[in-house]
Structures are given as C-alpha cells and as structure tokens.
C-alpha cells in the first residue's frame, strides 16, 4: 500500500478498495469469536445446572467491586474508540489520536485490575488444579476452572485488542488512516467492541453469580 506512488497514482480510479468487503470479512471473523465464547457459555450453563449450589458459593469468592469497576472501564473504552472513529470521519486527527490513546490507557487499566484480582485468588490458593480447590469439591473446581479459562481467554483478547489499537494509533499519527480511508480503524473498533460484549456476559455469569 505504502509503496512510492505519486499523488495522481494514489488517487487513480484503478485503486482497489472494498470497504464493505473488509467489514464483512471482519464480521465473519467476529462470528467465529462469538461461537467460541458461546460454546464456553453453554458449557458454563450445563455445569451450573449440575452444581447450582457450588457455583453460587464459589461466586461469593469473587471481588464484585473489581468486576464492576472493570465493566465500567471496558464500557468507557468502547465509547472512546467509537469517538476516535467518529472524529476520524470528521477529519479531526488530533481528537482521534487523543481518544485512541485513552482507549489504550483503559485497556491497560483493565489488565492491571485483572492482574490484581488473579494475584489475590492465587494467594488464597485458588488456581486451576490447586489442592485447596480439589478439597472444596467438583462444583467449585469447575466454577474456577471456567472462570480462569474464560476471563483468561478474554484477557488475551484485551491484550491483542490493545496491540491492534496501538497499530491503529500509529497509522493515524502517520497519516495512513485518513478521513477517506479508515476501514482498518473501524475494524479494530469492531474487535474492541466484541471484547466489551463478551465481558458484558462474563460479569453476571461469574461476579454476580452469588
């Protein structure tokens, strides 16, 4: 894309671009993510129906204020990324940059809170396969197995999303993303919103399970 071109060539009618196609492709990928996490939600529901009381007891051990704080952090990051796109559409590069920076900052905040949470669980002897959990029984073991798997997989998506957004920031600063060509930024935004949507479901399933 960035190979040396004269201005006339860059804007020549022969330039091949299909923004709708790019977006359809992104959505198709997001569907695979939806089915991936959807499968895990189905697994959660099945185990919860088998171990209803153990799931409720185990849910009490999770830190509700931290879970809710992280929800607000992610919801706000969804807003900031959508504003970054909105300002890019309006050709305001400075504001788009600022809101992308804010989004990346919120992604890091989410990860810091997640780390604090997981560390506290480890200190209390709660981690996959820990003797403490095995003592408590199969229900608690399944609950925390799913908790670490699903929040871990989600956390991995936050890290990938953060990296994507950093690349987008670089492209906005460099001028590769412009008012007339911002489909990559839009697609990165779609990915980030999906990460938010998944967390919207994780909050009640785990933190509010008690």
């Amino acid at each position, binding site marked *: 894309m960035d190979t040396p071109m004269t201005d006339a060539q860059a*804007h020549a*009618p022969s330039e091949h671009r299909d923004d*709708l196609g790019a*977006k*359809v492709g992104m*959505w*198709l990928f997001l*569907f695979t993510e*939806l*089915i991936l996490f*959807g499968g895990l*939600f*189905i697994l959660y*529901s*099945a185990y919860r*129906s*088998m171990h209803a009381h153990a799931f409720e007891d185990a849910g009490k051990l999770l830190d*509700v204020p931290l879970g*809710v704080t992280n*929800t*607000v952090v992610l*919801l*706000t990051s*969804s*807003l900031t990324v*959508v*504003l970054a796109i*909105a300002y890019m*559409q*309006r050709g305001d590069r400075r504001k788009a940059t600022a809101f992308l920076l804010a989004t990346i900052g919120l992604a890091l905040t989410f990860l810091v809170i997640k780390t604090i949470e997981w560390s506290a669980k480890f200190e209390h002897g709660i981690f996959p396969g820990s003797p403490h959990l095995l003592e408590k029984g199969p229900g608690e073991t399944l609950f925390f197995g799913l908790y670490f798997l699903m929040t871990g997989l989600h956390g991995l998506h936050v890290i990938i999303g953060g990296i994507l957004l950093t690349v987008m920031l670089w492209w906005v600063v460099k001028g590769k993303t412009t008012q*007339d060509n911002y489909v990559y930024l*839009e697609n990165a*935004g*779609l990915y980030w*919103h*999906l990460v*938010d*949507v998944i967390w*919207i*479901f994780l*909050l*009640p*399933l785990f933190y*509010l399970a*008690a």
Partner: protein
Amino acid sequence: MEHTTETHADHPSIGTFLAVWLALVVLTAMLVIASQVSHDLAVAAMLTLTPLKAGLVLYYFMHLKYEGVLLKAMVFVAIATLLVFIGFLFFDIGFTW
C-alpha cells in the same frame, strides 16, 4: 471517484454515543443492584438487562444501525444460530435432570 455522497452524509452524532454509554452504565448499576436483592430478581435482570446491553453495543457502537441489510442479516443469522444451540442445551438439561 470518492464515495463521499452516501457514506459521509449520515454520521451518527457524538451525543448519541454519549447517551448510549450513559445507558450502559445505568443498566450495569441496575444489574448489580438486582443481583444483591434476591436470587429471582438477579436471574431476571441477567436474562433481560445483559442482552439489552449487548444489543446497545452491537446496534450503536458497532454501527449496525447504520449498516445495510446484508450485515444486519448476517449478524441476525449468527446470533440466531447461537441461540438455537443454547435452546437445545436447555431442552437437553430439562429432560436429563
């Protein structure tokens, strides 16, 4: 050659996004409060408010409101497929235990 005519005309306003964010935060607060009141209310809130929140993100933040019928239909089929599987699961659990 630029497709300025249709794509740049109807940008959603900044105010819309702020309103959606506020609604999401309020719905989250309602969900948390409901979960502290009673078990039944918590389940009811989980089953109604959570899909509503996800819907708001999909419709406004993910721009579905402003997309054509192709993308809307694709998302509908994907979510419907997932719901069918979830439905099967509940039938299965209902008849097994």
